């Protein structure tokens, strides 16, 4: 029996001039899976993520995201995914509620629905007291949790998280992963990048990119076994080192 696929990538190539950023990538991501996307700075992760989000066209390859073609159906892809990153997520000069309303509006939800769901969300996150405060005045940990909730506010099929926990305190980092697990158990597929290697171990499967290629793809437990390593940090260092020596 085949598991339902949220993303299929076959022979993805992306070139910038003579530089090959993505060199013949092939992988699938299953529905409801937490899929970790790892690689050294410059390994080609961002290039792949941009293609999967419909923001950049591949040079060649067959790629399907949430059932849509990345060459011809990018708008449909954008309607069916959520995105959040550490660097950019919400507007600092809007209030908590205004941010939710803004994103709900962008994704075409009705104002009535936005209001109702915003109330539920604000209560669930414990943000009732700061509902009308500017985002710039609330702590980073709260912002990141809100940003994630906003990224899945329109019930997307897939959500992309680009280093979502950078700089966040160790308690909030773990609360954030609780939210990721909850979303995955509701059937949302999660693609996440991180430099924290303990977080790589929370993923169902991990893909490690080295110099534009997929060097390894498996469950964290199996990778640790294959590379005879103590943890994912060791696996990562072994693989990324190899690249530098070549």
């Amino acid at each position, binding site marked *: 029996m085949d598991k339902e696929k949220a993303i299929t990538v076959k022979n993805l190539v992306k070139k910038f001039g003579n530089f090959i950023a993505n060199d013949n990538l092939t992988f699938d991501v299953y529905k409801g899976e937490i899929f970790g996307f790892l690689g050294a700075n410059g390994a080609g992760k961002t290039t792949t993520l941009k293609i999967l989000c419909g923001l950049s066209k591949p040079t060649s390859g067959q790629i399907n995201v949430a059932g849509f073609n990345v060459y011809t159906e990018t708008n449909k892809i954008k309607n069916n995914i959520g995105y959040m990153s550490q660097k950019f997520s919400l507007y600092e000069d809007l209030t908590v509620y205004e941010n939710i309303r803004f994103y709900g509006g962008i994704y075409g939800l009705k104002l009535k629905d936005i209001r109702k769901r915003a109330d539920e969300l604000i209560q669930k996150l414990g943000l009732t007291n700061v509902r009308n405060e500017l985002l710039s005045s609330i702590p*980073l940990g709260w912002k990141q949790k809100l940003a994630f909730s906003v990224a899945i506010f329109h019930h997307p099929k897939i959500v992309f998280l680009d280093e979502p926990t950078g*700089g966040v305190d*160790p308690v909030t980092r773990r609360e954030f992963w609780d939210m990721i*697990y909850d979303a995955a158990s509701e059937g949302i597929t999660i693609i996440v990048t991180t*430099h924290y290697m303990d977080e790589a171990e929370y993923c169902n499967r991990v893909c490690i990119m080295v110099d534009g290629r997929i060097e390894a793809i498996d469950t964290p437990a199996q990778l640790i076994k294959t590379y005879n390593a103590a943890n994912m*940090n060791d696996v*990562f260092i072994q693989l990324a080192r190899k690249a530098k020596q070549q």
Partner: protein
Amino acid sequence: MNFVEINNISKSYGSHKALLETSFSVKKGELFGVIGPDGAGKTTLFRILTTLLLADSGSARISEYDIFKDYKKIRQIVGYMPGRFSLYQDLTVEENLAFFATIFGTTIKENYELIKDIYVQIEPFKDRQAGKLSGGMKQKLALSCALIHKPEILILDEPTTGVDAVSRKEFWDLLRKFKNMGITIIVSTPYMDEASLCDRVSLMQEGKIMQINTPDNIINNYKPILFEIHSNNMHDLLIKLRKYHNNSNVFLFGQTVHYSSINEINKDDLKMYLKNNGHANVEINVCTPTIEDCFLWLMNQNN
């Protein structure tokens, strides 16, 4: 005598208290880490030390120089690498380095020996504009520029944030090397695992120092009992463990859950409880805390 002495420094931005009566000292030649998440006050502290920001109260000195009265002297002996890339994007690699050397009245040639190990890695790109470098190369250039006037102390604000695990390791090897040359180093990081690479660390949270000690002593000072637990269904294990006992903490740690409590917890009782709640194949072991366990415990005590 301590090389850096910080006494009761406080700083507020409006009603937000960024630093609360912070005090510590750093010895000559020491590699001192300031560990904490965003909002801990690390950047504020570093900007005050480097004379870029005035404290509301308190005092500090580096070597024999007061950070307020002798700010010009301080700027000559400090090499500072801010958290945000602050070199000239439209100058080339070599131009940036030459610029910083000239400002400090020296030349690249005069202190080349000091930066050689880092600079050779970016030298092939010396004619490229700094703004067009990759993240890792920008970081190496910024460190070269901070070192080019042969400072007595390096103050590095989150040099490894957003950097991959391999480059982070290489960066710490470099810091060790500079330390061995006699340069005093104060470095901040949100990565708890980097604490063990420092001689001493200060663990900070929301403007307050929770503890200052050697990494080993911070671990020795950890009081709760700590178990490392593994089961087939980790998410459910978390939920069940949270219901087991009051006054305990349950956190994911890589492939295991860390369960800590200030009360006496019997391992066999815990195993039986988990077995009765659908976790037949659990492994429970007493484990040595990491700095992150210590940080989580201290955070909990402070709240």
